[in-house]
């Protein structure tokens, strides 16, 4: 399944689809890191608005993506987690600890703007 990755300046925006299999998620993890290197991006926004279920594998993948991208000196923000999905996640104990989150794409970009302002 193809996941669209857009480039907006120094930020990459990956929009996750609804029914991503484990194999899809694995491909995405590698693909995103490659793109960060290729474009020397400063941040990646992963938009999971369309994901109706976030299970332990998806959660672990997102944390790994964030970790690997940080090793490349870039920031990751997860946006668009639905209220019901968030509720289910915390029941399972999946808190995405250590990964920045924001309400949606707009908030994610605002967060990055603030962050880049202060670090410049």
């Amino acid at each position: 399944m193809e996941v669209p990755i857009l480039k907006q300046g120094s930020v990459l925006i990956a929009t996750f689809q609804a029914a991503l299999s484990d194999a899809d998620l694995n491909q995405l993890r590698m693909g995103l890191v490659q793109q960060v290197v290729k474009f020397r991006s400063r941040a990646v926004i992963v938009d999971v608005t369309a994901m109706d279920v976030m299970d332990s594998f998806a959660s672990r993948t997102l944390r790994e993506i964030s970790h690997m991208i940080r090793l490349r000196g870039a920031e990751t923000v997860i946006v668009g987690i639905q209220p019901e999905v968030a509720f289910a996640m915390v029941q399972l104990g999946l808190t995405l600890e250590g990964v920045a989150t924001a309400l949606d794409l707009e908030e994610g970009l605002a967060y990055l703007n603030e962050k880049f302002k202060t670090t410049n």
Partner: protein
Amino acid sequence: MSAGEIRVAINSDQDIVSARQKGRVMANELGFSSGDATLIATAISELARNIVSYARKGQITLKMLNGLNRQGIAVIASDDGPGIADIRQALRDGFSTSGSLGLGLPGVRRLMDEFDITSQPGRGTVVAVKKWRQ
């Protein structure tokens, strides 16, 4: 009127998605709220995932339940895998732990209303969970 029982063979990670999507459809048909349907789909996803990770193949059965005054859904995850040696350990619930360690069974139990597990080393595992419509 749709089937009261659906069986999904779990052989690969693709089947995880298929099982939870079917679970969501059944939950919607039973009139569960969208939030509850998400909880059910998430539980199915974790149970199917355990099958793939530890037993490589097995089956998820989804059943519509018609109780005396209520309706619900049952999810039965069964496999012929290696089984669980220490069930008590697997069910130990540390509230403040971060997930994705081990089988995540305490988490699945929190998602659903009823939880039952039968497992023996070498004899496979059956996990049966139920959720009732409020």
